[in-house]
């Protein structure tokens, strides 16, 4: 028994060719682009989701396995440009036509698709700091 309301989430798979038509349709309907999320699978495949607000929840249009995608900044303006630029700087995913001459998120020296930021595990850092690589750090 549902005691209270909650938000719906519907995932729909699309191809990269459908990204722009979907964005145009959503814009025409007055839907807000809540966010563009992206991550890399363990085998390096890109997963990019366009999350649109719908009454009561989110409709998520997901493109899998494509690392070069069309930009929707012409449709959602800065609401799409910032997420696209952030994704481009953090991951080896490209949105065609987005100006990358200036950084948004990453340092200037790490522009041009340097890939995802990797966190060095604390035990490795400790080993390096103490010069005990391969040994006990306690």
């Amino acid at each position, binding site marked *: 028994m549902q005691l*209270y309301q909650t938000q719906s989430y519907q995932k729909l798979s699309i191809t990269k060719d459908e990204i722009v038509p979907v964005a145009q349709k959503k814009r025409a309907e007055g839907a807000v682009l*809540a966010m563009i999320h992206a991550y890399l699978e363990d085998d390096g495949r890109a997963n990019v989701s366009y999350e649109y607000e719908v009454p009561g929840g*989110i409709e998520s249009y997901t493109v899998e396995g494509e690392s070069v995608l069309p930009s929707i900044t012409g449709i959602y303006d800065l609401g799409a440009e910032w997420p696209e630029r952030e994704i481009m700087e953090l991951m080896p995913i490209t949105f065609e036509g987005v100006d990358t001459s200036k950084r948004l998120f990453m340092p200037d020296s790490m522009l041009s698709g340097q890939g995802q930021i990797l966190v060095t595990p604390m035990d490795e850092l400790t080993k390096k700091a103490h010069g005990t690589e391969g040994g006990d750090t306690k």
Partner: protein
Amino acid sequence: MSYIVPIGPYHPALEEPVHARLITNGEEITDAEVFIGYNHRGIEKLCTERNPIQTIVLVERVCGICSHSHALTYALAVENTMNMTVPKRGQYIRAIVAELERLHSHYLWLGIALHIIGHDSLFMHTWNDREAIMDILEEISGNRVNYGMVTIGGARRDISDETRVHVLKMLDKIEESMNRLRDILLTDKTVALRTKGVGVLTTEDAIRIGAIGPHARASNVPVDVRKDAPYCCYEDFDFNIAVWDSCDVFARVVIRVLENFESIKIIRQALDMLPAGKINLGNKIPRIPAGEYMFRHEAPRGQLCYKVVGDGGEYNHRVSIHVPTFRNAPTIPTMLKGNSVADAGLIIASIDPCFSCMDR
């Protein structure tokens, strides 16, 4: 003559690191650019090495002001992935803490804005009032920053009847003080001179760029996740979405004052109607099944998004965090254009930014 005036990333006028580049013609700002990412801590990556209970502790530390919002949104995303039904009392307690957090956050911003405006006596008055809210949060949770009130499946601490009665009394005092503060803020000449007509973001621009939260509502855009897609039993409470149509920094001041009254209204109702029963589903460390869910919570600064991807393993497969500042910061250049360099600090601060939160 045209100059480029850099502000930040580390600057005495900024509370947190961000870099703004102002292109000016004399004193007038003709264009601006904003650069972020100076406090990136790799939190999303760290989430992939933690189980859901450990993740709550971690994400509470994304932000020092809306810590409860982060833990709550993550928990809601996980619970929905798992189709959990959280006890109603637990949901009410979560909503109470969320509204207390909104109150203290709005008071904090009002204080900072007044300090930037140069009205330090009112800044101190505001922060004095905020202490009463912090005391309530401490009484309920035992903490003043990271409350630790959320667990997967409900709330971690109950609210006793004694605390409930005390909080209701405290709310009367806070509301009385808020009435006084509202009268001063709406009529004070210093506040009006520094904020009216400054940093305008028109309704059209707010919608075009995708502004959210109080920032959008101050541009007459009535968006609020608590109404648009209710959760945590917000549908049980009678409250209004505050909007203001002057679209300037003054509107952003007014909106936060009005929202404080709405938050007090919600907390009173939640305490009065607090359902009996359990507050959570017990102490189990859940495994997130294969699948994903994105949840949105109306945090003090606007819509906070958590997308959680599970693979059935011990840890999160992926967690993606996007805070309200990420949606509101792109409006900064539009608001700065045509204003004086002297107002740049106030205009940037008027979105109630949390840059460290945004950099996560």
